[in-house]
């Protein structure tokens, strides 16, 4: 289930306020030098981060376990960039080419040292397109039904 409850989202959605300005928080995701300083949950660190930060550019961030030294990398492509408000990219654990998902980060300034970050991670890069396609098909079916009923 999502943190919102139920399947209203069918996606991961997190919202948190960070105690820093919007430009700095955005840079924490955009600048690989900064990414490498914090990327990785507790017990992991980031030995290498690189990216080509433009639409169509790619990124690769590594994580290494402090104890076992096992490594995993995440890779992807930037789909939308609107500095310092929005980053949308694909997300793929290196070595799993079938599982490309979509990550969206939206930054909202709340003060010189407060920024709200909304993260949405869903299963399909083309979720919106799938929804739009479905709605188009439905109105065709309804139109057909109306004609047949007449």
């Amino acid at each position, binding site marked *: *289930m*999502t*943190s919102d409850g*139920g*399947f*209203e*989202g*069918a*996606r*991961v959605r*997190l919202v*948190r306020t*960070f*105690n*820093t300005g919007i430009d700095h928080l955005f840079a*924490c995701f955009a600048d690989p030098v900064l990414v490498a*300083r*914090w*990327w*990785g*949950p*507790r017990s992991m660190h980031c030995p290498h981060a690189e990216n080509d930060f433009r639409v169509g550019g790619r990124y690769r961030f590594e994580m290494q376990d402090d104890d076992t030294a096992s490594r995993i990398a995440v890779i992807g492509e930037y789909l939308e960039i609107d500095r310092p408000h929005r980053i949308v990219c694909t997300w793929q654990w290196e070595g799993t080419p*079938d599982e490309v998902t979509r990550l969206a980060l939206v930054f909202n300034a709340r003060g010189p040292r407060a920024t709200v*970050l909304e*993260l949405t*991670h*869903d*299963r*399909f890069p083309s*979720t919106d397109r*799938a*929804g739009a396609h*479905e709605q188009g098909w*439905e109105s065709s*079916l*309804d139109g057909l*039904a109306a004609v047949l009923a007449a």
Partner: protein
Amino acid sequence: MLPGPTPVDRAFAALAHPVRRAIVDRLLDAGELTVGAIAAPYDMTNPTISRHLKILEKAALIERTVVGRTHHCRVSEAGIDAVAAWIRRHETFWRGQFDALERYLEDEARTHDE
């Protein structure tokens, strides 16, 4: 390994539509509903509702039993569990990432104050 969508892919594709998500939510609440009860709140034709239910069935998110002429639908535990597991795993990962980012920002702020 065959090419093409995996079961979890199909489940998420099915849940990409707000009406289908709402149907699944209502079935999770109600346990079981007839097709008539599912269709009731919507200003939608029968073929359209049928199509939504077929997509959910093919994605192994709901199961249907027929009693006489009435179709009863309920959630398929296995299908729902696969989706929930993906969401849970990634939610845990991102919470950990946010915690790490917070720690980094706190350390940085402390260093600047010194």
